[in-house]
C-alpha cells in the first residue's frame, strides 16, 4: 500500500472507490445507487468548472473569513513548555466557529446545482449542523439537521444557533444517541427522500463520494496554511509536526492535504483520537487502538466493534470526536505510515484547555482540538527548539461552555 505523488489523496482510490484497495467503497442500499451516481457525476464535473470554482473561492476566501483564518504563534505556551515552537491555525475564527463551514458551503452550492431546495445533514458537536443552517439560510435553502439526543442536550448553544437560523433539528433517540446514530438516521432519511433532498455528510466518512466532497472542501485549510508558513518562515521549515484531532477526520484531512507529498521527516502528521474518560473502555479511537476493518455507514474502515461485527458504543467528552468509525482516508494514511495516530483522554483535553486559557488570550479551543493541544503539550518539551508544532484549533469552545463550567468550575 503506497501513496501516490501529485494526486490529491481524495482521488487516490481505485475504480471501485477503495483507497489502498480496501478502505472506502460504497456499501449502500440499491435505492441510493442512482442518487449517488448522479451526485458523483455532478461533483466531478463541477470541480473542473471555472465558474463554480470562482464562486467557491469567493466564499472560502472572503465570506468564511476576511482572508485566511489566522496562523499565530502561541508564545506563552511555547515558553512555558520550553521545547518546540507551538503555533495554531485558528480555523475557529471562520464564520460560525469551525471548519465545517467549508463543507456546508460546498453542500449548499451542490444542492442548488442539483436543483434541490432541501439540505440535510448529521451533526455531533453541532458545528456541522450550525454551519449547514448558516449556509442554507444564505443560499435560500431549507435545512434539516439530525442530531443524537445526547448531543442535543450537551451542545445546546449550537442547537440554539441552528434553530435561530431557521433549521429544523431532529433529535435521534436510537442507540447511544450520539453522532453514529445521527449519521445512520440521516442516511435513512435520504433513502426515503432523495428526490427532493440533498445530503451533505458532516465529515470525510460514508460512501466514497461523500468522503471526496468533504475532503475537497476542508482542503482550503492547508492551502491557506502553506502560504502562511512561507510568509512566517520564508520557506517550509525543516521539522514540522501537524497535529489535529480526529473524529471522522475532516479537519485533519483539511490541515494535511497540501503537505502529503512532503517527506514525513520534514512534515509529519499526527492525528489525535478521543480516548474517552480515563478508565473507560469505550474509546472512540479506532486507529490508535488498531480496531478491525469493518463496514459502517457505507464505507469500509477501521471501526470500534465487537467480535460479531456489532458497532460499539463510544464515549467521549467531545461530541465531535465521539464516533466509532473513521474516514477511509485516515485508515489509508495510517496503513501507509504517512500519518501517526494516538489518543488522549477527556481529562487530558480538559487540562490542556485549562492551560491554554491561562496562557493564551487569542484562542479558545473547543474540546475537540483540546485533544490535539493535549498531545502538543505532552510532546513539546521533549522536542528541539527548531521543531515547529502546528495545531489546528478547528473549533471554538463556546458550544462547550456548559460542560467546561461543570467540569472546571468556570468558563
Amino acid at each position, binding site marked *: 500500500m503506497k501513496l501516490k505523488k501529485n494526486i490529491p489523496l481524495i482521488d487516490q482510490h481505485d475504480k471501485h472507490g477503495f483507497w489502498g484497495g480496501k478502505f472506502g467503497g460504497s*456499501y*449502500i442500499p*440499491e*435505492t441510493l*445507487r442512482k442518487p449517488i451516481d448522479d451526485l458523483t457525476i455532478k461533483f466531478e464535473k463541477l470541480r473542473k468548472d471555472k465558474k463554480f470554482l470562482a464562486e467557491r473561492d469567493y466564499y472560502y476566501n472572503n465570506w468564511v473569513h476576511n482572508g485566511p483564518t489566522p496562523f499565530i504563534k502561541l508564545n506563552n505556551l511555547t515558553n512555558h513548555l520550553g521545547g518546540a515552537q507551538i503555533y495554531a491555525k485558528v480555523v475557529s475564527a471562520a464564520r460560525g466557529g469551525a471548519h465545517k463551514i467549508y463543507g456546508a458551503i460546498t453542500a449548499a452550492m451542490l444542492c442548488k446545482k442539483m436543483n434541490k431546495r432541501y439540505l440535510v445533514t448529521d451533526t455531533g458537536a453541532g458545528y456541522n449542523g450550525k454551519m449547514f443552517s448558516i449556509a442554507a439560510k444564505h443560499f435560500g435553502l431549507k435545512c434539516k439537521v439530525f442530531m443524537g439526543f445526547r448531543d442535543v442536550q450537551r451542545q445546546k448553544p449550537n442547537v440554539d444557533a441552528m434553530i435561530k437560523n431557521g433549521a429544523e433539528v431532529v433529535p435521534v433517540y436510537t442507540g447511544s444517541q450520539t453522532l453514529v446514530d445521527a449519521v445512520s438516521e440521516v442516511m*435513512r432519511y435520504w*433513502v426515503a427522500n432523495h428526490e427532493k433532498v440533498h445530503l451533505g455528510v458532516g465529515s470525510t466518512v460514508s460512501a466514497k463520494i461523500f468522503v471526496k466532497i468533504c475532503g475537497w472542501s476542508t482542503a482550503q485549510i492547508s492551502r491557506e496554511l502553506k502560504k502562511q508558513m512561507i510568509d512566517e518562515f520564508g520557506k517550509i521549515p525543516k521539522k514540522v509536526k501537524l497535529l489535529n484531532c480526529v473524529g471522522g477526520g475532516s479537519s485533519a484531512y483539511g490541515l494535511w492535504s497540501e503537505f502529503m507529498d512532503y517527506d514525513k521527516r520534514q512534515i509529519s502528521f499526527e492525528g489525535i483520537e478521543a480516548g474517552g474518560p480515563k478508565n473507560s473502555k469505550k474509546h472512540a479511537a479506532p486507529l490508535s487502538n488498531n480496531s478491525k476493518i469493518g*463496514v459502517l455507514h457505507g464505507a469500509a474502515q477501521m471501526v470500534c466493534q465487537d467480535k460479531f*461485527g456489532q458497532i460499539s458504543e463510544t464515549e467521549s467528552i467531545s461530541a465531535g470526536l465521539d464516533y466509532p468509525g473513521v474516514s477511509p482516508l485516515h485508515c489509508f494514511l495510517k496503513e501507509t505510515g504517512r500519518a501517526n495516530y494516538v489518543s488522549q483522554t477527556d481529562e487530558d483535553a480538559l487540562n490542556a484547555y485549562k492551560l491554554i486559557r491561562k496562557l493564551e488570550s487569542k484562542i479558545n479551543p473547543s474540546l475537540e482540538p483540546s485533544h490535539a493541544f493535549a498531545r502538543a503539550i505532552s510532546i513539546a518539551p521533549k522536542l528541539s527548539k527548531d521543531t515547529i508544532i502546528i495545531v489546528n484549533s478547528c473549533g471554538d469552545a463556546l458550544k462547550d461552555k456548559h460542560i467546561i463550567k461543570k467540569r472546571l468550575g468556570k468558563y
Partner: protein
Amino acid sequence: MTASLISQAFKKCKKEGRPALLTYTVAGDPTKKISLDILKSISKNIDIIESGMAFSTPIADGGDIQTSAHRAIKAGINLNETFKIVKKFKKIEYSKPVILMGYWNLILQFNENKFIKMCKKTGVSGLIIVDLPHPENKTFAKKCKKNGITFVQLLSPTTSKQRMKQIIKDSHNMIYYISQSNTTGGKLKVSPRKILEEYSKIKKLNNSKNVVIGFGITEKTIKSLKKADGLVVGSAICKEITNSIKKRQNIVTNVTNVVKRLKNKIR
C-alpha cells in the same frame, strides 16, 4: 442444494394461482426461543421465511425493524445463535426455504467462507445483503451459487434500465424489487398500480426469474399487489411483536393471526 427449495416454493404457489408469501422477522426477537416459536407457528401459512440478522447500525431499516433488531441484540443474538435458530427450525420443517437478510459487516466479521459453510450446514437457502450492491457483490454471489445458495439481487425504482439488465443477468432464481424509495416499513407513497408497472418491466426483461415485492406491504396493501410472484411483509410483523409486548399479549398468537390474515388476502 437448498436454493432449489426456493424455486419449488414459487412453483407450488404458481400452481395454486397465488403469490408466494414471505415474512421477515428478526432472529432472536424478542428472545431466541420466542422467535423460533414464531417461525414454527407461522410456517404453514407462509412459503418462504426471511430471517433478519440483527445489526446495530442499519441504514435502510425503518423504526419497526430497528426496534426488533435492538431487542434481539439485547437478548443476546449473534450469528452463531441465528444459525442455531435456523437449524432447529429446519429440523422440523426441512422443505420450507429460509433466507437470511442483513448487512455486510456481520458476514465480513464472521468470515465469508465460514458464513457460507454455516449456511450450507444449517440449511439456509438464500441471502439478502442490503448494503452489498451489484456489481460489488458479484464475487460473493458467485460463491453462494457454487454452494447452492441463492444470492438475492435487489432492484429499486431508481435502478436504471441498463443497470437492471445487468443485475438480472447476474441474478439467481429470485429477485427482490423494492417497491419504493424508502426505508423498510415506510407508508406506501406510490400507488400499487405504479409498483406493478415497474414489476412488469422486470418480468418482461426475464420472465423466468421469480420476482418478489417488498417494503411497505401491510394487511391493507397486500391484496392490491397479488399479481406478483411473491410478496414480503416485514415491518408490519415486527410492529405486531412490539405492540404485543406493550399490551402484554401473547406474541406468537398475535403474529400468527396477522400472518393468517395476510394469507387470506392473497388466496
